[in-house]
């Protein structure tokens, strides 16, 4: 009923060390700039504002002195078995190219928001109004990322355009574009994280750091018992943080 995971020779993935995250929000800001997220005139309604990368604040719900908090940055989890893909009526979102990145085809999306409903990670955002860049701010637009009209769904693409640039650079220097060096392709959020909490690479490539990181005994993925098989891993040495990665019965 819940579909099957596709295997890709290159599987881009992110590893987020929650214990290193300070919650500064640099990942969110860099993502918004890199991906031409429209300036939001009124962002106090968090259920309406767009943030492909969103930092959640976690708490252990205990009183002082046992109180503890953590920050959890959440990009699109690029599920191996994405709940959003099979439901799209018009194949506007797909997981069929190398790299295992879940695509979003803006000119094809009809804006039904079925994918928004199907995704438990809330990574999908809808364009509620026409995007407007106040005069002068249009100069901040990046030519590398498509802007979206209102009425379509958008989401994190692992800065897919950067992969294309990295492949071009590899070709230009005579290297194999299908076997990029570690760090040749990283997303904007990873590049701009000041505390080194975010790592990015090919999960299947032994030369890439993330290949080892995901084997860390403290690594976990969000909502794994639902069978989404995500390509984003989290690491925390704190058990209460790891436990917040999924739902557990009292007996478990």
């Amino acid at each position, binding site marked *: *009923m819940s579909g099957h995971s596709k295997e890709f020779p290159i599987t881009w993935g992110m590893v987020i060390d929650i214990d290193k995250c300070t919650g500064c929000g640099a990942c969110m800001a860099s993502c918004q700039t890199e991906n031409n997220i429209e300036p939001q005139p009124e962002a106090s309604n968090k259920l309406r504002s767009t943030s492909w990368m969103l930092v*959640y604040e976690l708490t252990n719900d205990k009183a002082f002195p046992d109180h503890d908090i953590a920050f959890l940055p959440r990009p699109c989890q690029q599920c191996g078995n994405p709940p959003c893909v099979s439901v799209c*009526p018009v194949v506007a979102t797909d997981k069929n190219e190398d790299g295992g990145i879940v695509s979003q085809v803006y000119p*094809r999306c*009809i804006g039904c928001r079925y994918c928004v*409903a199907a995704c438990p990670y*809330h990574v999908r955002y*809808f364009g509620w109004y026409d995007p407007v860049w106040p005069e002068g701010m249009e100069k901040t637009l990046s030519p590398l990322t498509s802007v979206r009209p209102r009425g379509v769904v958008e989401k994190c693409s692992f800065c897919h355009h950067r992969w294309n640039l990295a492949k071009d650079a590899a070709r230009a220097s005579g290297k194999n574009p299908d076997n990029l060096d570690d760090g040749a392709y990283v997303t904007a959020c990873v590049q701009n994280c000041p505390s080194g909490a975010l790592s990015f690479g090919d999960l299947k490539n032994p030369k890439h750091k993330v290949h080892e990181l995901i084997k860390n005994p403290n690594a976990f993925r969000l*909502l794994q018992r*639902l069978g989404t098989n995500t390509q984003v891993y989290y690491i925390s040495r704190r058990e209460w943080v790891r436990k917040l990665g999924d739902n557990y019965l009292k007996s478990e």
Partner: protein
Amino acid sequence: MEKTWYPEGVERCGLGKFMGWLGIWAVVGLLGVLSMLWVFYRGIGVTGLDNYFGFGLWITFDLAVIALGAGAFFTGLIRYIIGLDELKNIINLTVIKGFLCYSGAMLILSLDVGQPLRAWFGYWHPNVHSMLTEVIFCITCYLLVLIIEYVPLILEQKQLNKIPFLHNLAHQMHVVMPLFAGIGAFLSTFHQGSLGGMYGVMFARPYAFREGFFIWPWTFFLFVLSAIASGPCLTVLICGFMEKLSGRKLTTYRIKSLMAKIGGTMLLIYTVFKYLDTWAWINGVLPKAGLTFDQMFYGLVYGKWLFFTEIVLCLLVPVVFLLTPLRKKPAFMYSGAFLACVGVVINRYVFTVQALAQPVLPFTKWEIYTPNWAEWLTSFMVIAYGFIVMSLSYRYLPIFPQEVGLNKK
């Protein structure tokens, strides 16, 4: 002059009174049209929907009216395919009701999609794995079938029917009607099911997810059953309401009672499967996802009272009312039919809104969705449209074959 447009041998209220009645609904409809234009102009940001609740009142409304409109295909199936001839006395009403429900739902859907001009992409770039693709196919095709079923009724209008071509056309269309009843039954069964399947396949939403048979989650079958149970019930309610409003008998009590019995029987079958499904959900789907039954409810709007209202008050009670001799008493028959309809509306609401409100990520919380004026006014617009078309149809078209005989002085 206007009286010559009435069906043969019937009485209708004065034109002034009728226009006043239509006027009230026209005002409601006009407010809805203005809201609709505003939504088209500004985008659906003007609604109460958000990134947490991609689906809200509009989808609930659509699913509810499509379920309640199922009386059309199911009554057509029983009348034409199974051959229960008595239903000819109420079939026209079910056809008009079905047409109104489906065309109204289409109108709302055109508002609800972010890019309405791309709605045809469902045909051009279909994803054959998506339940919604199947819904798009079947709803659009079935609306065409309903139009084909409604047109001969219009052509039977007294003055139009005097034109030989239209008279013959209406006759020929009636001849082929069993074929369309069959096509309608096929299309409608599938999209009622696919609407349920839409929720059942959301494997990362434990509130809605269900195991199933082959490619169909159990919600596929449950939505079909609940639709064919509540559809005939709404027909009975509409017929009773029209009788109350017009002060005239439109069908015999026996016909309405038969429809209620059909609805009640389906409701009983639905109840058995719904209980089995609920048991399997509580003991299978939820523990597998690490969740408990209690975690599926929150506060007032997502409270357990909704759950128990749906599966006790709106299932067991109407089954008793509609399938026992209590049905002979109008109060029980109508309240049974009403409860069955309320039950299906609650069911569609919880699957649409509560399924999304329930926080799957452990560090997120329940969110409340409140539809705003843009969603309410456009929904009322569809209701007003229904009242207007049904009123016009009743006044000028020979919908009820028994009306003349039942109202002889």
